[in-house]
Structures are given as C-alpha cells and as structure tokens.
C-alpha cells in the first residue's frame, strides 16, 4: 500500500467526522448558552444584536456548554501557561492520575498473569477460581472505590496505593481471561511435539505456551490500561478533591466551572489515547523482536 491512499482511506474520513462534530458542537453551544446570554444582557440592561449574542454565547465564563476553542484555551493555559508543580496545572494533576494508573496496571497485569498460569496448570484452580474471577467483575468496583479509599485511609494506607489497587482490581480481569486463552492456544500437535522432546512443564511453558500467549497478552493489556485509567480517575473522586484529574472534575462540578470540567475530560481523553498508543507500539515492537512478519495493511 502506498502512503496517499492510506491518507485518503483513513485520515480524510476521520477528520471529516471530527469536523462535523466540532461544527455541531458550536451550533449546540449557541443554543444551549442562549438563555444565559439573554439573562446576562437583561441584568446589565443591554440589548445585544444577534451577532453579539452569538459571539457572547461562545465566550461565557460559566457556560452550560463551552465552545471547543474555550476548552482548548483552558487546556493550553493550564498546561503550558503554568509551572508544572502548580496546583492548578493539568500536567501536575495528570501526573498524579497517571502514576496511580501505571502502578495499578502493573500490579494488575502481574496478578493476572500469575493467576492465569495457575489456572492453566492446576485443574483445581481452574474449577474453583475461574467462576469467581468472572463474578468479581459484576461487583461494581468503581462504585466501591470511594469506600475502599476511605477504609484504606483509615488504616493508614493513603496516597497512591489505594487508587492503584482499584486499577489493579479492574485491570487484572482482562489479563486473566486473555492469558488463560493465550496459554491454552498452542495446538495439540505442538504440545505433542514438546512431549516427544521430553520437555518438562517449565520448558513447555517458556518455549511454547508463553510465546504463543503474547498476542493475547497485548490484546488484554490494551483493555486493561484503559480501565486502569478509569479506575484511577474514579478513585480520586472521594479523596476530598486533593489532586488528580478526577479531583479536578469533582471540584469543577462543585463550583460550576464547566470549562475546567471539560478541560479535565479532554486531558483524560488525551492520556487514554497516549496510553493505548504506547501499548500498541510496544506490541508491534515485541512482535517484531519475536520474529513476526510485519503485518500487511489490508486494502
């Protein structure tokens, strides 16, 4: 495939859709903020011309729906415009959230892999644990997150770890499910071949099962990193709005700072995008190092 057709096939449609969304957004902002503008005009005893009303509804301080450029301006102001250590800097809050996300993701991945190894090798673990692992995810842990944090605070565990534990709880699940599938993915022929080599369990694991499970692992990691971030953000909601993107959301909603809420949302979306991309890149890197042929892009 040549580069221009990739451009025409993917970039142009995506950009078009985004452009339509942005245009729609501006129009929506016009209508949703209209009453606020009118009220403001009445309060000040001014009569706005229609064009001034339009302009004003895209420039309010606390609009019902801020216009995209307001959000971007706020994002710029709170990232590049402030020093990184400032309490109002989104970089600072983003870092707080990111560190909890990464720690939780790491712990969850490790736990998931260990559980999967146990489940694949021990029939008893498979029978007894697997149904509970699935049931564990129907517990709305995000709903419990605030309580977990308060409880852990009460016994002296505070700061990064409680949030990370919520991310762990969320992210271990896709890893377990994916890795159990992946570790069982080698075909019978290959397992039989290992038998003819007189390979022991450890050798079968390191030379056959583990390499075969790597694609499954990365598929799970992509899901896991996304929900780790969600876990970390929700985990920040009850901590008295101290720090992190979740705290930013909550304080924004307390004080009606809509632009701040939207900026925090955009920052979270940006973070999610980066994290998923990084996992995707490391996947292609690992696959290449393992000798997989580069995938051809389908037409």
């Amino acid at each position, binding site marked *: 495939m040549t580069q221009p057709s990739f451009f025409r096939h*993917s970039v142009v*449609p*995506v950009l078009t859709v985004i452009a339509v969304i942005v245009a729609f957004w501006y129009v929506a902002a016009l209508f949703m903020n209209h009453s606020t503008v009118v009220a403001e005009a009445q309060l000040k005893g001014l009569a706005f011309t229609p064009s001034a009303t339009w302009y004003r509804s895209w420039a309010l301080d606390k609009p019902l729906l801020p216009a995209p450029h307001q959000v971007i301006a706020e994002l710029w102001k709170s990232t590049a415009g402030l020093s990184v250590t400032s309490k109002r800097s989104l970089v600072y809050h983003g870092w707080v959230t990111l560190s909890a996300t990464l720690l939780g993701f790491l712990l969850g991945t490790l736990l998931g892999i260990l559980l999967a190894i146990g489940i694949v090798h021990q029939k008893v673990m498979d*029978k*007894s644990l697997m149904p509970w692992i699935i049931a564990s995810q129907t*517990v709305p842990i995000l709903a419990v997150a*605030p309580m977990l944090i308060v409880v852990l605070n009460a016994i002296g565990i505070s700061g990064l770890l409680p949030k990370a534990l919520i991310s762990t709880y969320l992210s271990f699940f896709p890893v377990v499910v994916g890795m159990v599938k992946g570790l069982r993915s080698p075909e019978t022929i290959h397992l039989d071949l290992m038998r003819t080599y007189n390979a022991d369990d450890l050798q079968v694991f390191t030379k056959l099962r583990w390499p075969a499970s790597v694609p499954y692992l990365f598929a799970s990691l992509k899901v896991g990193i996304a929900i780790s971030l969600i876990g970390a953000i929700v985990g920040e909601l009850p901590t008295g709005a101290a720090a992190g993107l979740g705290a930013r959301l909550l304080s924004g909603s307390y004080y009606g700072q809509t632009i701040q809420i939207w900026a925090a949302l955009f920052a979270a979306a940006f973070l999610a995008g980066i994290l998923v991309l990084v996992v995707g890149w490391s996947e292609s890197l690992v696959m290449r190092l393992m000798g997989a042929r580069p995938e051809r892009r389908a037409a």
Partner: protein
Amino acid sequence: MVAVLLIAILGVALGISWLCVYLVHLGEALPAARRFVDLAVPLLFGVMLIAEWELVTRGFGVPEILLPAPSVILNVAANALPTLWEDVIQTFVKSALSGYLVGCGLGFLAALLINRSDFLKRGLLPLGNFVSALPIVGVAPIAVMWFGFDWQSKAAVIVLMTFFPMLVNTEAGLAAAGHMERDLMRTYAATWGDEMRRLRLPAAWPFIFNALKINSTLALIGAIVAEFFGAPTYGVGFRISTEMGRMNTAMVWAEIGVAAILGSAFYGVIALLERRVTFWHPSVRKGQR
C-alpha cells in the same frame, strides 16, 4: 485463643481446598458427576471465602468500620429492605435499564446506518474505538448540570457509555458474514432488508451479545458512579456515599452486595438470551471438545 483461631482458619481453608481437589479428581474419574462437580467446586470455594471472612473479622475483632462480618451485613440488609428496594428501583430500573436500552438501541441503529456508507464507517469506527477507551463516567457532572439530579442525568451518561461499544461491535458483526454467503445473497437478488434479516444480522448476533454483556456491567457502574455527583435522596450510589460519610460500613456493604447480585443477574439473563439466540455458535454448541 489466637492459636485456636489460627488453627480454625487454616483448618477451614485446608479442609475445603482438599474437598475441592477431591471433587475435581472425582469429576475426572466419573464423567457422570462432572456437572455436579462444576457446580459444587466454585460454590465450596465461595463458602470458604465467606467462612474465612467471618472467622477473621469475628476472631480478631476487626473494627466494624473497616470490615464488617458477613453475618452483620446480612443482618443490616434484612432490616433495611425497604430502603434497599427504593434504591434499586431508582438506580437499576430507572437509571441503568432505561439508559442501557436507549444506548444499545441507538448504537445498533447507528451501526445499521453507518453500514451503508463506507466513508462514514472509516471515519466513525476509529473514533468509536477511541471513545470506548475513554473515561466517559467523567461526563457525569456535566450530565447532572444539564439534566438535573434525578435519573435522567444518569441515563444520559449510560447512553453515552453504552453507545460506542454497541456501535463498534455491531459494525464488526455486520462485517462478519463471509464473501461467499454475501455473493449467494446477490445471486438470489436479495434486497438489503432481506440480506440483513437472513444473513448479516444472524451472523452479527455473537458480536452484538458481546456488546450487550459489556454494556450490562457498564450501565450499572455508570448509574452508581453518576450518583456521586448529585442525586435525589435515594439511589445505590447516593446511599453508598452518604452511609460511608456516616461510617456505617455494614450498610455500604449491603448496597454493594445488592448491586453485585443485580449485576450478576443482569449479566446472567443476557448470557441466557445469548444461548437461545446464537445456539448455532461453536462456543454454545454442545458435544464438541
């Protein structure tokens, strides 16, 4: 005293583990008993967890604020049934179910529409995949601002949360029918509607059910978390946050228990429906393996 406790805790763990191992071996030896074993082993494991929980919290006198014993939680729940019922109606029936139905329905319809245009497909699917990875619960404060404190704002969040997984999965499902079958439909001069009904939709059901299952947990979580940002004076999320503020942990656990049971039941109903609808799918079909 502590020694006795430790022995009891260890004894229960070892005893039930041994029983599980024994049952699994029994299941291997007797194929007739396999169904029973598949049911009994996870149940036993659950009983062990709860027994250990009770033993540890009672035995070591864990303060109730940290972790109440299962019996205490059950007692509190039994005394607060009307409250629990009210919360369930508000959070599960009004917020979660309505948002779930609208979100999944819209996602499905959007997928059908997009399916007709290659351009839209290429433009929307990457975005849909991206949005699925976003922390959408974050829009809860905005929804509360727009739609008020009651269930409508929660339903709006859930619509947004469930829309994109449904869109992406349905789209993948509609593309799942093979070229051969599609060509066959063309030779029959099948209309778009015929092709949808007889080929594409049946092929898409496993994907659609996948989205329905993912969304069932999302909907419940969304409803509860959205209530943290503002709710009328009832609802599971509201109760969890206020009872936590009053350090009434047992009630919080009771709500969590109810939510877990509801979540599992919701998931179970959809899984059962899936077995009915996609009876032909290899993962449902019996006799293989």
